[in-house]
């Protein structure tokens, strides 16, 4: 018999609705699982047993009273620490916010609570979501459940590790340049970056406002879609929130699971296939297999060229730091967080500088200074202005490509999970993790990562992700094609997490999700 923590979110909700398990039992099973494995995985910065059990009891009471329950009522979830949660510590992975308890909920948090989803705690992340390995957290290094000597990706690495390690069936991440998709890929789970504006940014601690987007992680495409449906929708509290209803991604995922892609045109992006080197051969081999599977499902595969994608890395690492340098000015030692040097001998400005020096880590300082440089007079046109023009060209490349194809595909990341400490000394070695995910970030278009194979090129067998990109507001295409691919992959190999080494004292890993 499989453990409660091994069930998918859809199965868990069905089990609770049918009365086979109570929400309290489900919450307790996950809290026990966290106690069992999180000393190794270190996905959580803060676990909230009391809050989780209280939320679970409320679901059980509503069920007993015969009230209608939402499709994810009683399902546990891990929340990235960049999302503000009333009454629960929120640090964004930074020392500058250590001990801060927000006085309000983000819209994402509110929607999660209102859906009866049980929040287990807050997950580790790269400080202010700047990084691709979660090693830039000021607090701890999260480990990849597939190999504890490796990173879980980033910046949402706590959220990806928690779901892969069966500490929660669902989690929430944010994606600015790939921070949902890349960690999903390297931990063998599903992660989706919604269309920019589909999910409210109210209450997300801002990194790069024109790029930041929250989204779901799950172990199956259907679970991920169910959470997406809870998160998405117009929010008057976010002026960039899209004022129309988004597509029905749950139906798309369920229809996609019939594994028929006849009539769907899939475009391979020439610039994201590693022709110029820099991609691991094991990643490219998995990607080629994935394309063969899509073709076998009836998809028509075409090749499309997006020439300006080659400049996405340069554009991103100008735009994101520029916006970060502005956004992070709010950490001024006055309204919240750390204050250093307030001893009567320093002016406000000195206290600010001392606080920010002590409160920010190296990567945050680097990005603030790059942004300050790119926005300074004399450089603005050549750097920030030019990057914004390139952004226009990248969006135009997408528009042309989507005339020839319904979805575009690429590897999610050029590499599988790398070793802890391997890339920390060289910022550029970390930045190239985002090569494949950056174009959709800059264009604001949706993209999903779905597990597509294992590569043992760097040692143990490690997961590879397939990225499926769609036009703005067509997130349903990501889910439809992702679910079709997932169904075919599972039929051939079983669920990818079945191949993960055993963690903890109970349960083999993936019986429930490995249908």
């Amino acid at each position, binding site marked *: 018999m499989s453990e409660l923590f091994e069930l998918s979110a859809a199965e868990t909700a069905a089990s609770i609705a049918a009365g086979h398990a109570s929400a309290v039992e489900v919450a307790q099973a996950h809290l026990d699982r966290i106690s069992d494995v999180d000393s190794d995985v270190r996905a959580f910065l803060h676990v909230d047993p009391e809050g989780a059990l209280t939320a679970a009891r409320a679901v059980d009471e509503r069920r007993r009273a015969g009230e209608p329950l939402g499709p994810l009522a009683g399902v546990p979830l891990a929340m990235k620490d960049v999302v503000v949660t009333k009454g629960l510590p929120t640090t964004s992975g930074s020392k500058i916010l250590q001990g801060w308890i927000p006085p309000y909920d983000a819209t994402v948090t509110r929607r999660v609570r209102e859906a009866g989803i049980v929040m287990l705690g807050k997950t580790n992340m790269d400080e202010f979501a700047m990084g691709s390995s979660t090693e830039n957290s000021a607090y701890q290094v999260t480990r990849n459940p597939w190999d504890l000597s490796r990173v879980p990706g980033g910046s949402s690495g706590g959220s990806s590790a928690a779901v892969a390690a069966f500490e929660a069936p669902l989690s929430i991440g944010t994606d600015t340049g790939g921070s949902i998709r890349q960690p999903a890929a390297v931990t063998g789970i599903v992660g989706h970056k919604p269309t920019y504006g589909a999910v409210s940014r109210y209450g997300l601690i801002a990194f790069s406002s024109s790029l930041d987007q929250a989204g779901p992680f799950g172990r199956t495409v259907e679970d991920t879609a169910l959470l997406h449906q809870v998160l998405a929708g117009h929010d008057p509290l976010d002026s*960039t929130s899209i004022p129309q209803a988004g597509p029905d991604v749950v139906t798309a995922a369920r229809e996609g699971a019939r594994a028929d892609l006849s009539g769907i045109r899939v475009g391979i992006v020439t610039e994201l296939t590693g022709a110029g080197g820099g991609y691991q051969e094991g990643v490219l081999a998995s990607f080629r297999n994935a394309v063969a599977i899509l073709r076998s499902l009836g998809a028509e595969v075409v090749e499309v060229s997006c020439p300006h994608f080659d400049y996405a890395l340069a554009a991103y690492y100008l735009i994101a730091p520029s916006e970060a*340098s502005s956004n992070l000015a709010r950490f001024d030692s006055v*309204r919240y*967080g750390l204050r250093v040097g307030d001893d009567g001998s320093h002016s406000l400005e000195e206290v600010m500088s001392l606080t920010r020096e002590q409160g*920010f880590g190296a990567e945050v300082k680097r990005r603030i200074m*790059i942004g300050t440089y790119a926005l300074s007079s004399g450089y603005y046109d050549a750097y920030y202005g030019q*990057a914004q023009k390139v952004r*226009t*060209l990248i969006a135009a490349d997408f528009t042309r490509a989507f005339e020839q194809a319904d979805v575009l595909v690429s590897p999610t990341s050029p590499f599988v999970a790398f070793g802890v400490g391997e890339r920390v000394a060289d910022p550029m070695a970390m930045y190239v993790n985002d090569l494949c995910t950056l174009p959709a970030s800059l264009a604001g278009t949706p993209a999903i990562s779905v597990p597509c194979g294992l590569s043992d090129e760097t040692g143990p067998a490690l997961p590879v992700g397939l990225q499926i990109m769609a036009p703005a507001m067509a997130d349903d295409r990501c889910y439809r094609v992702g679910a079709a691919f997932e169904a075919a992959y599972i039929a051939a190999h079983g669920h990818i997490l079945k191949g993960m080494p055993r963690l903890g004292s109970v349960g083999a890993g993936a019986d429930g999700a490995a249908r």
Partner: protein
Amino acid sequence: MPDDRSTLTRDEVAHLARLARLAVTEDELDLFAGQLDVILGAVARIGDVAAADIEPTSHAVPLQNVLRPDGVAPSLPRDAVLAGAPSVEDDRFRVPQILGEEE
């Protein structure tokens, strides 16, 4: 990769740090000067793209004049807001002296 940018000096990094209100240490100046120079070298290729007549994109989803009714709604209670502040006096945020002695 064409890069006619001059090397970022230690003094320039110190200037950037001052603008960004970061009291960086001497060791950090050395470290960051090298690292920022590598990063700026890598992003400098943005200049290779012929984009003179291209409109800049500041936001993926162009929206204009997002307005809401000018209604009164409750704001956060004062105590809840001040609870997170590093220093509070008389129900206000307490700040260090604004003017330094040299100003």
